[in-house]
């Protein structure tokens, strides 16, 4: 508690952990390249340097606020200092901005522009390093790395993976996996958080847009889209629409205009997942089989379990992810000559996630020898595709998605946010479907953006212990306790990314606290707007189970093994 003077104005501070936060609270957007409130303070970029009343300069991210402090954020000295830092960074940086995938979203580019750097005085002496495109999820281009360490800290502190680290020192320093291995040879789970944190184009999404454009241009191909819940609450932001508001209708319209033959909704796949996963849960409960049941919707989490906790592989739900079920069912539907019309089917899935690009290549993502999902397009790529097409997205009229797989329940939409899978499963398990029952579920502890949520519900006389986790580092904490017998859960829901898919590795980057909250609200409000809340009451699902899916549920909806 206290007051400090920032650029001649008195500013109150309370529990801010550093001067930087106080400055930002005062409405001054002080530049940073290595500061993120969610990971530890690194103090490497020095761009947040300020000057105090005695002429001393210091990095505001690494200084605690003190009562009576007098600081200047824009004195001639700090401005000159900051400009020099950016200039030096640019000196050792690839400057092919026009052809860089990050152009327009790059923090370094933005800062160089903001500081009016039109010329770099220093010679670029950096050697060229090989680009690592071994991973289906991300591409690492060391030539664009500024050594801020954001990816290293995100991978280690938030995700508990630590696939990346600094290597060597001084002018030889680089960020790389151990022994400069290819990403695909490391324990990387493909979550893409490094790419979300990377301020430049050093880590970017492995894109598949060209393959999709090619499929759309092929008259012999039926191109089908499925759109995940978290995508619809993130696209509008890029077009100046209300943050977090679902724009599913506009997305359907724009995809139709781009030439997609059918646009389905992944919430339908989510409903299928709820049906299968709750049946599996009940089966375990009745047969006294091994608990906890671990959710299997998140591919980064599934890989995490397989790599780091192989002894718990059997606890993973055998259910395919909503994406997997959706694609398997759709492909099977169009295998019927009655529906196929002589065309080949290409399934494109629009996801907030880079790890989904890995999931579709797993052996258990194939049915009848055929890959179920052909391409995964992240939200960021979808926005690029819309921009590429020139369609005025903001002005589009909403359209409804297509039959027979274009409708999901409110419960299915909830999959986009942490706790959503559990909430949808509870809706399925609890027989009542009145408003009070739904509200009771919503208030049982499943909602909210805390990283680890634990609660107990009563189901038919049994106490069912549930744990909902987001962020893999948190998942590790929970799994260690489970492994050591310190915690007993019946169900553990894990989403690899903090707050769930709404903050996935394929979402548009640089989302602040307001955007994060707005996306979660957007998911809940999309649920509120759904007429059908319970997955089992989805009429399209019911007719599918009674007809087409008979005898095929195991083949299309479950994984043999991990």
């Amino acid at each position, binding site marked *: 508690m206290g007051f400090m003077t920032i650029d001649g104005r008195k500013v109150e501070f309370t529990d801010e952990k550093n001067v930087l936060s106080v400055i930002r609270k005062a409405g001054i957007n002080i530049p940073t390249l290595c500061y993120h409130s969610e990971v530890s303070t690194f103090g490497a970029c020095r761009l947040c340097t300020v000057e105090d009343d005695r002429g001393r300069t210091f990095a505001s991210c690494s200084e605690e606020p003190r009562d009576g402090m007098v600081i200047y954020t824009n004195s001639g000295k700090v401005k000159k200092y900051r400009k020099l830092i950016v200039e030096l960074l640019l000196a050792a940086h690839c400057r092919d901005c026009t052809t860089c995938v990050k152009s327009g979203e790059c923090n370094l580019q933005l800062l160089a522009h903001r500081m009016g750097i039109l010329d770099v005085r220093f010679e670029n002496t950096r050697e060229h390093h090989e680009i690592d495109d071994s991973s289906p999820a991300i591409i690492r281009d060391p030539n664009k790395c500024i050594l801020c360490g954001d990816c290293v800290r995100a991978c280690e502190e938030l995700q508990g993976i*630590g696939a990346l*680290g*600094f*290597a*060597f020192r001084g002018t030889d320093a680089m960020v790389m*996996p*151990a022994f400069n291995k290819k990403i695909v040879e*490391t324990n990387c789970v493909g979550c893409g958080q490094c790419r979300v944190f990377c301020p430049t184009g050093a880590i970017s999404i492995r894109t598949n847009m060209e393959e999709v454009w090619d499929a759309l241009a092929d008259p012999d191909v039926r191109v089908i889209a499925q759109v995940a819940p978290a995508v619809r609450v993130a696209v509008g932001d890029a077009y100046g629409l209300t943050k977090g508001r679902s724009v599913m209708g506009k997305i359907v319209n724009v995809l139709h205009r781009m030439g997609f033959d059918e646009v389905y909704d992944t919430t339908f796949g989510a409903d299928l997942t709820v049906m299968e996963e709750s049946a599996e849960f009940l089966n375990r409960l009745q047969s006294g089989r091994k608990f906890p049941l671990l959710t299997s919707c998140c591919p980064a989490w599934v890989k995490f379990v397989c790599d780091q906790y192989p002894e718990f592989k059997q606890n993973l739900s055998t259910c395919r992810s909503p994406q997997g079920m959706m694609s398997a069912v759709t492909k099977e539907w169009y295998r019927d000559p009655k529906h196929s019309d002589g065309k080949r089917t290409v399934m494109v899935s629009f996801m907030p996630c880079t790890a989904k690009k890995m999931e579709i290549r797993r052996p258990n993502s194939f049915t009848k020898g055929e890959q179920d999902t052909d391409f995964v397009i992240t939200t960021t790529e979808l926005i690029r595709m819309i921009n590429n097409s020139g369609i005025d997205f903001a002005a589009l009229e909403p359209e409804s998605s297509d039959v027979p797989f274009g409708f999901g329940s409110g419960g299915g939409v909830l999959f986009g946010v942490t706790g959503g899978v559990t909430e949808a499963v509870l809706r399925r398990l609890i027989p009542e479907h009145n408003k009070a029952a739904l509200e009771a579920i919503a208030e049982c502890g499943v909602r909210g953006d805390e990283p680890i949520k634990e609660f107990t519900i009563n189901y038919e006389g049994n106490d069912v212990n549930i744990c909902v986790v987001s962020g893999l580092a948190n998942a590790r904490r929970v799994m260690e306790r489970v492994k050591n017998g310190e915690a007993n859960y019946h169900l553990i829901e894990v989403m690899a990314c903090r707050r769930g898919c709404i903050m996935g590795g394929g979402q548009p980057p640089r989302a602040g606290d307001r955007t994060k909250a707005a996306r979660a609200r957007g998911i809940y409000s999309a649920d509120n707007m759904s007429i059908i809340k319970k997955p089992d009451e989805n009429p399209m699902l019911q007719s599918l189970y009674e007809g087409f899916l008979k005898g095929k549920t195991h083949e299309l909806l479950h994984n043999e093994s991990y």
Partner: protein
Amino acid sequence: MLDQSYYQKADEIIASHGRKSSSLIPIMQDIQEEYRYLPGELLTYVAGQIGVTEAKAYSVATFYENFSFEAKGKYVIKVCDGTACHVRKSMPVLDAINKKLGLSKNRKTTSDMLFTVETVSCLGACGLAPTMMVNDEVYPRMTPEAAEALIDRLKGGEGA
């Protein structure tokens, strides 16, 4: 693939320092002492055993010049190129050694695995400049001729 004995040795070394992340550097030092280099497979193994990520262990190992992932020769010659030694002409000493052994900046170990030649920034013996070390022994006031003679003696098996 490393022989199983390497892992057993690593286990002993880990046990002597304690299975904790702060033991990383002393463990790496002991392994290097044992094998005259730090086998990459052992670094990965140690990291897993003491609970640090492989990338972090690699980060530490590459930060310090002292650790080497390549097998070093029986005699490690460290020619000092600190300021004092440099002005007292340590570079001609280095050049003479490299020439005699057929080594260069990029090739530091002889193929018979007898000699490794490195430069160091200061041995802390500036009064004796130019200095060099062979394994643990310091050789003061070197000249190119003295260095060549020393190498001949070492080759003859007289020990450092």
